[in-house]
């Protein structure tokens, strides 16, 4: 009798430990739980943020997650279709980053960034760059609408809805030092593009968040804050091009000063 009781109690003990181990597997807070058919739940290909480290049906723990966050091969570019104008706009930016951009903004050459030899010459040269998206009476409404869409999600929390540098982060005192666009009258379009693309001062590079077409659209939208009559086609001729050309002399003199 005693023997049988011992056997039963042993069985119960084994069963209980098994259950507890199993339930601890399920109750692991980081596990998303049991799956009915893992081969249908788990992609053999590496999906974004999902990487089981699976190589030829074997799970290799040391490879987990590593493969889903690799950079594209150096100097590859996305396919931008066959529209020549669009493709030329989207080709890699021809201006290099400041020579100190690696230390100041984390743009290291080993990660595919192109650094110039000097601190500011590329930035000064960018003053003469023209916006490839031409603002006309026909497209201005659409461009400003698109600009507002991008601005409200990528810029507004710091630069403010009206471009006065009074975004919610500034109002809260979380962040300091965002300028009012009104004070940036003497910048060229290309310099605004350069600053958004590579970052400037406290602002980081935004070229990973928005593509070149979106940045050029933003340049139009930001110009609306800088110049009261920007994109206002009721007045005889828009002062868009004028404000750019007058700056060329200044940039030349600055370059010689360097």
């Amino acid at each position, binding site marked *: 009798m005693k023997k049988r009781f011992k056997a039963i109690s042993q069985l119960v003990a084994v069963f209980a430990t098994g259950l507890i181990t199993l339930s601890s597997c399920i109750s692991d807070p980081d596990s998303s739980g049991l799956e009915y058919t893992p081969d249908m739940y788990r992609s053999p290909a590496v999906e974004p943020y*999902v990487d089981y480290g699976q190589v030829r049906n074997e799970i290799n723990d040391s490879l987990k997650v590593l493969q889903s966050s690799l950079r594209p091969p150096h100097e590859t570019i996305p396919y931008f279709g066959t529209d020549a104008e669009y493709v030329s706009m989207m080709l890699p930016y021809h201006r290099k980053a400041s020579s100190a951009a690696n230390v100041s903004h984390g743009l290291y050459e080993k990660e595919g960034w192109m650094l110039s030899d000097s601190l500011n010459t590329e930035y000064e040269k960018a003053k003469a760059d023209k916006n490839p998206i031409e603002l006309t009476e026909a497209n201005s409404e659409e461009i400003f609408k698109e600009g507002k869409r991008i601005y409200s999600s990528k810029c*507004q*929390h710091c630069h403010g809805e009206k471009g006065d540098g009074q975004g919610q*982060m500034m109002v809260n005192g979380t962040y300091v030092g965002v300028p009012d666009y009104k004070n940036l009258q003497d910048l060229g379009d290309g310099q605004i593009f350069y600053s958004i693309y590579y970052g400037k001062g*406290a602002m980081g590079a935004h070229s990973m968040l928005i593509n070149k077409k979106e940045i050029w659209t933003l340049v139009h939208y930001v110009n609306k804050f800088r110049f009261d009559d920007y994109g206002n086609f009721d007045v005889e001729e828009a002062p868009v091009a004028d404000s750019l050309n007058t700056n060329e002399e200044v940039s030349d003199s600055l370059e010689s000063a360097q």
Partner: protein
Amino acid sequence: MFNKGNNWLFALMSALILISANPSSAQDGEALFNSKCATCHQPHKDMTGPKLYEVRQKWEEGGAKEGSIYQWVKNFQVAKANDPYANEVSAWSPTSMTIFADLNNEQIDAIFDYVDAQPLSSEGGGGEQVASTGGSGQKEETSLGWIWYVLAGIFIVIILSVGGVRRQLSNIDSDEEYQKTYADEIRTWMFRNRKSVGVGVLVIVLAIIVGVLLQLGQIGVLSAYQPSQPIQFPHDIHAGENDIDCKYCHNSADKSKTAGIPTVNVCMNCHKQIQGNETQAEQIAKIYEAAGFSPEGGGQYSGETENLVWNKVHVLPDHVYFNHSQHVVVGGIDCKQCHGDMTKQNELPRVVPVEELNEIDGNIQLTKPTLTMGWCIECHGEKEIANGPVEGKGGYYDEIHKRLLENDKSLYQDYLEDGKVTVKELGGWECAKCHY
């Protein structure tokens, strides 16, 4: 008479000058500082440029030539060439000072006067006022749970020891050779009450079967799934208090299948400056470590980066296809329809249960658990796309709408009866839309 008048005039003039001189220069200083300097310099904190508080004294003590600080502001390269101290200062950061050729000495003095007048307490650290409220409630709950376990343990010990004492007493009492064990006692007790024991066993077995079946139904349902993360990221401070758009960090939500987990360089766009208070600094230091950034002396990147591995929260099986851009851009669905109100989420992100989603204003009311197929197709059956955000933009959906409305209406009578076109009626319930 004349003299008196002259005196009056003089007094008035001098008073005016006295009144106007000081505030106007202070105001000038403030305006100039904000428009020229504030993007890189702060009074009490090193940013892109060094802090400017009492910088004139600092230069004097450092052995700078007289007036070279003004030269530095106007054109730092001239000052660098003329003054060894200025040359030393230029090595503070690899970036360079901007040239302000249009400022004169009085204006520069006005700026420095304004900066020196700034009290130390106004130092902007960011987010100090935020007390972390999350976590405490959960802790209380878990500690209460442990008390129950401890109480249960104590009761079991009491019952067993009382039983043992009783058994030994009865053993002494009966004087038999064979000593009764627990098992014998239980068996006799069970035999005596065999009817109620039988019913009890039946109930327990049935309960176990039902429980197992219910548990099987819960497999793959991720309601309230909240995995740990490398950084205790508070969504409420970012998206709520500071009003940062969801799509700033999750920037591929309108372009791609995945919404995107931001890489550290996106964090660094703000956290290069924001170092947080004591509790936050610990978490923010993890970003710095991953980005290879050291905040000292205006901040420098070392180029030695590390991976931050986040745990995916909304896990979808491979056999279902979901695309964020389709829902965000074409469907015009707000993030909170599926992810809840993240502007109030202080704790780590989780799969928000459907009951909580239903409480949010403007959300389509659903009943099935979040992230299950029932939940998806329920929404596809409810969501209207006529008069939706894509109407009037031309293309695919306009064409389908036109066909629906212009072709033989009797074919679509059922669909158009209620006067609305839902996702389901445009094929949103077809298997191959999501499973292929």
